[in-house]
């Protein structure tokens, strides 16, 4: 069997159910692959792991991938299981936020570590400076959780539809107490969890073939997970070595994730790609990427995998 | 005398517990020291002289018997700062200059700044260390360190002086000089002095009472009351009375050694 190492963007959770299902259900075995799944974490940059040769393929968000590409790391999107974005800004009503106009002068929690790009381009679209002050917004580097919102340290925090939002709810705030702004609805959605490999590796036909089989099996996993969300969540729980995840949360997450993967067969939608690139290029004075990338994606793998 | 003894030990015993069995340092020692006495302790090495002095100073707890100082317990006397103590080793604090070391008890006892300076100057002269005030202990010779530690004990006013071989590391001339000075101080201030020495002439020259100790377990072999007058020029040491007492002390010591 051929060895493939997959680097996830975050810890083991239903966000990556497709891969765990493919592993567990033997889809990778069927393709004669021996896949190692490495969970990520707060300080793991999948791009860096890829560069260091620690993984063959990584799950990454497109803004980070394109930024890395501009830094000279030739990452290529070989598949895009997530069709839509799950990012949103969750705000407290009692902090006085009803519309995006109310952001002015407020404190907003944002994820950094390569995840800040969509937020920055959104703010530049709203023409809100992020240096604080009366006319702008004060940005907090949000930690791992939604505490700043619960502790009233920020008016809004970044959440994912499938994860942090539910932590806010679990903590005791009700949807009525909150206003959410989905990036998807604000027209600033960027592509999230895609599969990336290094250009030079893809030049090798044997590697390409491996990726084809990998993507095929992974997509099979995703579709299985969409249809059997509870079973998928169980599989994820079985694979969580930290023993910290709860069944309730993972099942709910699987349900939400399924909504995001629903529209994708694995192949990258060129229109989505364009929208992401434009949004990143327009990042005001300090755009995430400065030139239109080329060769940042390929259909070669998905074309072969899906036929 | 009509007054109560300044130091009074009754059947004092002290046993150290060590890793290989108990060591009897003192056994049934009884002794009275009157006010104004100058008592020398002499005895073979390891016989318990230091231990006895430490009991008087409340630095060691006797395991038997009783000791009173100034009519109260040794502990109370210590808290009343009844005595000055010169240790067998100099024991100067390395982070203080010689002057600073001598000033130490004065600071603790709350003497005024001016008084401190005057006293430090005075005792430094007494022990012939003027000019070394600002040196650190490790910059002094062994004998000079010893003198500094004597100066430290003399700097403040205590009625009792406990001195553990203070002049051991000094040459004869300095020693003679300090002997004279000590006698003069004693005559002037009416202090009560307990003095450990290994020198028989020194013991005889200085004391009104000589306590000869014998070793293991430390006991008192002989107590000799000196018939010498209070006024003692250095050449008293050639008189027959002097030599006779010295002889008696030597005999006492020898007997103690034979015991061994």
């Amino acid at each position, binding site marked *: 069997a051929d060895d493939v190492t997959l680097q996830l963007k975050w810890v083991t959770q239903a966000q990556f159910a497709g891969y765990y299902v493919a592993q567990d259900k033997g889809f990778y075995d069927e393709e004669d692959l021996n896949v190692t799944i490495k969970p990520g974490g707060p300080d793991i940059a999948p791009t860096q792991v890829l560069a260091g040769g620690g993984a063959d393929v990584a799950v990454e968000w497109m803004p980070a991938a394109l930024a890395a590409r501009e830094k000279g790391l030739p990452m290529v999107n070989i598949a895009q299981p997530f069709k839509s974005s799950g990012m949103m800004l969750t705000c407290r009503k009692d902090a006085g936020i009803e519309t995006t106009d109310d952001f002015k002068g407020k404190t907003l929690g944002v994820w950094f570590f390569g995840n800040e790009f969509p937020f920055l381009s959104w703010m530049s679209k709203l023409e809100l400076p992020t240096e604080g002050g009366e006319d702008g917004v004060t940005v907090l580097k949000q930690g791992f959780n939604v505490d700043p919102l619960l502790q009233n340290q920020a008016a809004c925090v970044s959440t994912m539809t499938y994860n942090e939002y539910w932590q806010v709810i679990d903590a005791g705030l009700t949807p009525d107490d909150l206003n959410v702004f989905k990036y998807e609805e604000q027209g600033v959605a960027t592509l999230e969890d895609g599969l990336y490999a290094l250009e030079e590796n893809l030049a090798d036909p044997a590697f390409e073939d491996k990726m084809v089989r990998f993507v095929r099996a992974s997509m099979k996993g995703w579709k299985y997970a969409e249809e059997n969300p509870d079973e998928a969540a169980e599989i994820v729980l079985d694979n969580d070595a930290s023993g910290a995840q709860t069944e309730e949360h993972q099942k709910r997450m699987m349900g939400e994730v399924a909504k995001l993967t629903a529209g994708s067969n694995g192949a990258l939608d060129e229109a989505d790609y364009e929208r992401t690139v434009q949004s990143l290029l327009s990042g005001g004075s300090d755009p995430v990427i400065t030139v239109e990338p080329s060769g940042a994606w390929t259909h070669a793998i998905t074309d072969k995998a899906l036929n | 005398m009509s007054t109560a003894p300044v130091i009074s030990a009754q059947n004092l015993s002290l046993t150290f517990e060590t890793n290989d069995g108990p060591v009897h340092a003192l056994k049934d020692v009884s002794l009275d020291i009157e006010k104004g006495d100058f008592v020398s302790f002499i005895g073979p090495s390891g016989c318990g002289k230091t231990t006895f002095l430490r009991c008087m100073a409340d630095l060691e707890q006797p395991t038997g018997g009783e000791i009173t100082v100034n009519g109260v317990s040794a502990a109370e006397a210590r*808290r009343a700062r009844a005595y000055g103590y010169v240790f067998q080793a100099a024991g100067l604090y390395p982070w203080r200059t010689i002057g600073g070391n001598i000033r130490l008890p004065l600071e603790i006892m709350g003497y005024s700044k001016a008084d401190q300076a005057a006293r430090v100057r005075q005792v430094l002269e007494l022990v012939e260390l003027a000019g070394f005030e600002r040196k650190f202990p490790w910059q002094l010779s062994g004998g000079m360190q010893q003198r500094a530690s004597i100066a430290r004990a003399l700097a403040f006013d205590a009625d009792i002086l406990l001195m553990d071989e203070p002049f051991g590391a000094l040459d004869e001339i300095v020693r003679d000089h300090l002997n004279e000075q000590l006698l003069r101080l004693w005559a002037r201030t009416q202090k009560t002095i307990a003095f450990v020495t290994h020198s028989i002439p020194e013991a005889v020259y200085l004391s009104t009472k000589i306590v000869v100790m014998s070793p293991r377990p430390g006991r008192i072999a002989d107590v000799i009351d000196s018939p010498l007058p209070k006024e003692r020029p250095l050449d008293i040491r050639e008189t027959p009375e002097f030599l006779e007492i010295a002889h008696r002390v030597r005999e006492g010591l020898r007997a103690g050694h034979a015991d061994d």
Partner: protein
Amino acid sequence: MIWLVFAAVAWAFGMWVNIRLARLRPARWVSFAAPLVFGATLIAVWEGIVRGLEISQVLLPAPSLIALRLVSSLDILWVDFVQTVLKGALSGYVLGCGAAFLIAVAIDRFPFLQRGLLPVGNFVAALPVIGMAPILVMWFGFDWQSKAAVVVVMVFFPMLVNTVQGLQATDAMQRDLMRTYAASYWATLFKLRLPAAMPFVFNGLKIGTTLALIGAIVAEFFGSPVRGMGFRISTSVGQLALDLVWAEIVVAAIAGSAFYGAMSLFERRVTFWHPSQRN
């Protein structure tokens, strides 16, 4: 290949210079020159190896690139320095060392505390600070206060252990002397125990300097305003701007070494009498 040879030659040359330096009569300039030469050697070797083995710049940038970045980003680095070192690390260091020192003295004072508080104190102080960091950020907010709190927790234990040990470092005769003066507790403390404890106390203070810096930086990983060395490092790793990451690390190393060096000088002045300082 050329670069690898360069690295080897640089290494050999640096060592040779230092051995020569060490044979010279001890002088102030030598004690400055030697570490500089050693450092320059390390940097040359690093440059040689990175270029020689063609290590990707997103893994380990060459020193020359880091230097370039350092010079061009001075403004950012300064802002981060103020936030992390001056506000976070320094205030936490003073508070943490001060608290540990006072508690050590209290422990030493009351046998009851010594028997009761020391075991419990050891336990509490052994809480891994990394775990404390998110909690402290939650309690003290995002700004430098929470970083200072993390630093307090971090420097506390080394300082406590060293001070307690130091306060017991007097010898029997030194203590007896104080007894003969019927010195009060405070007099004994100030005139004997504290001076005698100083070599140990400075051990704690010195170890604390580097811990304070690490603590302040690490705490920023768990939430921070958009400035600070820890913020910049974690953000830049995510952006693969490794040159900026290393520029921050250089600043941290310089700041930490200066901090440590200042403490050592101070130590030399205070504990000049200790055999380890007299040589």
